[in-house]
């Protein structure tokens, strides 16, 4: 199977590889997929609680080149977006940008799920924090 140049570029020079501190209240972590399915993505966002803007995004992915490229691209897009804007990212945007073939669409779905999971984790943390503030 031939890979698109953009997939190759992300595979060879993945953006934003790494991990953020899970325990930081401003960090949301999403982990999707399963090893026995051959894909696991971990995607993290660090949100400025004042502005709701994503200031940092990191990923680590176990999966094929297209899965790596999808998550790499996702972190690139997340930088500077607000949490609500980030939720607008659709898997089809990733498919189009990377020219993924049909058999690789699930990689883009996984990346969208990872974004949603990371943001939902952040929102949950923010909610408990504000509850904690309210009750004190």
């Amino acid at each position, binding site marked *: 199977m031939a890979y698109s140049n953009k997939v190759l570029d992300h595979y060879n020079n993945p953006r934003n590889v790494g991990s953020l501190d899970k325990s930081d209240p401003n960090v949301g972590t999403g*982990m999707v997929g399963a090893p026995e399915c051959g894909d*696991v993505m971990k995607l993290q966002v660090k949100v400025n609680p004042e502005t709701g803007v994503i200031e940092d995004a990191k990923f680590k992915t176990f999966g094929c080149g297209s899965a790596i490229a999808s998550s790499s691209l996702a972190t690139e897009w997340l930088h500077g977006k607000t949490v609500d804007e980030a939720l607008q990212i659709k898997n089809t945007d990733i498919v189009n940008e990377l020219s993924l073939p049909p058999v690789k669409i699930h990689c883009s779905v996984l990346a969208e799920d990872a974004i949603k999971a990371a943001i939902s984790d952040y929102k949950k943390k923010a909610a408990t924090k504000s509850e904690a503030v309210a009750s004190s």
Partner: protein
Amino acid sequence: MKLPIYMDNHATTPVDPRVFDTMKPYFTEIFGNAASRNHSFGWQAEEAVEKARKQAADLIGANAKEIVFTSGATESNNLALKGVAEMYAEKGNHIITAATEHKAVLDTCKRLEKHGIRVTYLPVQTNGLIDLDMLADAITDKTILISIMYANNEIGVLQPIAEIGKLAKSKGVLLHTDATQAVGKVPVNVIKDNIDLASLSGHKMYGPKGVGALYVRRKSPRVQITAQMDGGGHERGMRSGTLNVPGIVGLGEACGLCNAGMQEEAKRMAYLRDKLRGKLEKELDEVYINGTMEHRLPNNLNISFAYVEGESLLMGINDIAVSSGSACTSATLEPSYVLKALGAGDDLAHSSIRFGLGRFNTEEEVDYVADKVIDVVKKLRELSPLYEMAKEGIDLAKVQWSAH
């Protein structure tokens, strides 16, 4: 050293230049039909075919009259299984095979099941070998055939064919072996191993594609098979169709070369394979060999690099031709059924790479391949959330994954 490096010799091998030279005149000069009995063109073609038949027979300890030329091992497997099932239908309707067989055997069995044949698919142990006691227990008075491969095409493990042959003989059951990967690489002897039918293929042993053979025993017992293709009654009625003379000449020459150089070549393959393995294991943690190393083709290494997905690894070593059991590299999006049958877990199947060394690989290439694989595995582990978790001491088996 030239790139890309070919190290996928279980998929196919290049034609040895000596084989090619032997074949050449049979395309244009000695082009006769081996079945033409009344002119020299036919006689010469027939003579060449008979020489090749002898060369193929010699390689496996058979008699030339026991070799039936086919289009390849898939046809040989089909002919053996369907031919026996049809011929011995009155004796019984039960066939025993194993879960890790090639699809040419498994899918033929599936078809036979639709025609009233009962098939037992033996599981394999974690080392890839079948359990002889389990095989013995599976034999009934309706069993007509045991079909167990000699060497596995993915993990290279050698089944205990001599023991299986002894057992089959004592029970009066025929033994077919798909010896495609074994012939020419390790000594195969149909007499010593009590083999009744054996499939082999040209292009797995430096011969051409599109030609293979089926060994059919003629004495004690005399094995009969029903032809699966009707026509001119070639190959003593077992396989009709004008003989592929250049292909057969190539197969014969390939067999001859293997016969002459097998011992030395096997030693060289094992040396290179063990060097590759040693380098990988020295530089990388958590690498797992799939299948036993004790009973294995000298040119095979099947290895899982934990926490790294196979296709992404292949992408990083794109100047090296190897294959992976990862689902992403298969048309079905299912990981290797052979590796699954070992019970290693799907995650290790997704992380597996098959190295198939061959006659034309050099030590320099092995060094290059080892260094490159080590490099890319390290890079991908930096990228792997699973490697990070494992290093943190998290038991991945206990994590609640969100399956998708």
